[in-house]
C-alpha cells in the first residue's frame, strides 16, 4: 500500500485508517456546512442581514435610552399582577403535580399500567410551550390574568411533576422497606417515608419553577393573558421605546430580586 501523499516513501499499513479518519472528519464538517447553508437559504437568514440590521439595532437602543421614569406608576399595577399570576399559577400547578409525580414514580407505583400512561401525559403537557397554553386559554376565558394563570398552571405542572418524580425515584429505599416490613399501609409509607425525603426537593423545584414563571408571566400579556406584557406590547406598538425599556428594566429588577430570594431559600433547603 502506497501512502497517499508523496512526502514519504516508507511502507505504512495503518495509513488507510489514518486517511479514512481524516476523510470522515472532513465529511462531517462538510455536512455541517451544507446543512447550515441550506438552512440559511431556506429562511433567508444570512450574515448580510446582520450587517444591515446592526445600525438599526443601534438606533433602537438609542431610542430606548433614557427610560421613561414617569411611566413607573402606570406599570406598577400590571407588574404586581404579573407576580400574582406567577404565584397562583405555580402554586396550583405544584399542587396538581404532587399526586401525578407519585403516580409516575416506579418505586411508588410499581403498576406500569398506571405509571407509563401518566408519564406519557406528562411528556405531552411538557411539549406545549407556555405562550401556546396562554393563547388557547385567552380564547376560552377571554383576555385577562385568569387565562395567564391557567397557562402557568399547566406549564408549571409539567416541570414540577417531572423533576419531582425523578427526585422521588432517587430517594433512599431503606426507610420505605423498613416501614413496609412493619406493616405500614401504602399511604403511611408515602406520608412518613417518601414525603420527608422528597419534600426539600419538591420545594426547591417549586421555587425554581416560580423563577421561570416570573419570566414567563412577564410576557404572557403579549397574547392577552394579563400582566405587564400587555403594556409592553402597547408601548412597542406606539413606538414608545423609552416606555418599553422602562418596562423591561422593571421586569429585570423584579426577576433579579425574586431569583436572589428564591436561590437563597433553595440553598438552605438542599
Amino acid at each position, binding site marked *: 500500500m502506497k*501512502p497517499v*501523499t508523496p*512526502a*514519504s516513501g*516508507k511502507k*505504512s499499513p*495503518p495509513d488507510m*485508517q*489514518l486517511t479514512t*479518519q481524516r476523510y470522515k472528519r472532513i465529511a462531517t464538517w462538510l455536512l455541517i456546512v451544507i446543512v447550515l447553508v441550506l438552512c440559511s437559504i431556506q429562511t433567508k437568514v444570512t450574515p448580510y442581514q446582520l450587517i444591515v440590521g446592526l445600525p438599526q439595532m443601534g438606533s433602537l437602543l438609542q431610542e430606548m435610552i433614557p427610560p421613561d421614569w414617569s411611566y413607573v406608576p402606570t406599570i406598577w399595577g400590571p407588574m404586581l399582577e404579573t407576580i400574582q399570576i406567577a404565584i397562583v399559577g405555580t402554586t396550583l400547578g405544584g399542587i396538581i403535580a404532587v399526586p401525578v409525580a407519585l403516580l409516575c414514580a416506579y418505586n411508588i407505583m410499581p403498576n406500569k399500567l398506571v405509571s407509563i400512561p401518566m408519564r406519557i401525559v406528562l411528556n405531552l403537557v411538557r411539549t406545549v410551550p407556555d405562550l401556546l397554553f396562554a393563547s388557547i386559554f385567552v380564547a376560552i376565558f377571554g383576555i385577562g390574568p385568569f387565562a395567564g394563570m391557567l397557562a402557568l398552571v399547566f406549564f408549571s405542572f409539567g416541570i414540577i411533576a417531572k423533576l419531582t418524580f425523578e427526585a422521588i425515584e432517587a430517594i433512599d429505599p431503606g426507610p420505605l422497606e423498613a416501614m413496609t416490613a412493619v406493616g405500614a399501609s401504602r399511604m403511611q409509607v408515602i406520608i412518613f417515608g417518601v414525603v420527608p425525603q422528597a419534600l426539600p426537593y419538591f420545594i426547591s423545584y417549586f421555587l425554581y419553577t416560580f423563577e421561570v414563571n416570573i419570566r414567563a408571566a412577564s410576557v404572557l400579556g403579549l397574547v392577552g393573558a394579563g400582566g405587564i406584557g400587555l403594556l409592553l406590547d402597547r408601548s412597542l406598538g406606539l413606538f414608545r421605546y423609552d416606555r418599553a425599556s422602562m418596562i423591561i428594566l422593571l421586569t429585570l429588577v423584579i426577576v433579579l430580586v425574586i431569583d436572589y430570594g428564591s436561590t437563597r431559600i433553595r440553598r438552605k433547603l438542599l
Partner: protein
Amino acid sequence: MIQFNNVSKTYPNGTIGLRNINLTIEEGELVVIVGSSGAGKSTLLRSINRLHDITDGEIQVDGKSITRANDRELRRMRRDIGMIFQSFNLIKRNTVLNNVLSGRVAYHSTLRTMFGMFPREDIELSLHALERVNIREKAYIRADQLSGGQQQRVSIARALAQEAKIILADEPVASLDPLTTRQVMDDLQRINQDMKITTIINLHFIDLAREYATRIIGLRAGEVVFDGPPEEATDEVFAEIYGRSIRHDEMLGGEV
C-alpha cells in the same frame, strides 16, 4: 548535561522546597531521585523544565540557563525535555496516536497545529515511537481503553516522538501494579541505554531505584543527602535519607 547551581526554592507560604542544591547530571545517566514524600523530589524534577520556578540560583540545560530564558526560549528548551507523569496525563478520549502526536506540537507553527494537520514524518515518527514501547498495534484505539501500564507507555512514546534529549519521569510507576511497573521501568531503561537519553526518575520504591539507576540522589527536606552509585546506597543510607528505617511499602518486592 544538567547543572544545578545553588538552587533554592521557597514557597510563598514560607515552606522550603529546595535548599542550596548543586548537582551536575551528565548525558546518558539514569538518575533516580529518592526521598520521603515532601522531601522535594517533585519540586527538583519540575524545576528542570521550569514547571516550578525556583527562587534562587540557576539551572542550566546543555549550557543554556532555563531559569533565565524568556517565554520563547523556554518553550524551545522544553521541547527537548520529555516528561512522564504519575497519572499519565493523556487525553483519554483521543486515540493513542493523537496523544503521541501532541508531543510534536512545539515543532510547528501555531496556525498549522490549530488545524491538527501533522506532516507525514511526524506520524511515522510517532508510530515508530509506539513501536519502541511495543504498542504500535494500539495506535488507533482510544487511550482510555488501554490498561494503566499501556497508558504509561503511550506517554513514554509521546516523549520519544518529541525527540527529547532528556526525559523527566515524576513517579512514573506509582499508580501501576508490580508487573507493569517492571515493564515500564524496563522500557525507560532500554530507551536510556539505546538512545542515550538522559533520564531522571522520581521513585519511592527503594529496590527499583537500586535495580535500574546508574546514580541515586537522596533528598531530605529539600537537601541532597546522598549522591552516588546504587552499590553505595545501602539500607543504612536509605534509612538516613528517610530519617527512619525502611518500611515494607517502600519495597516493590519480587526479583531484585
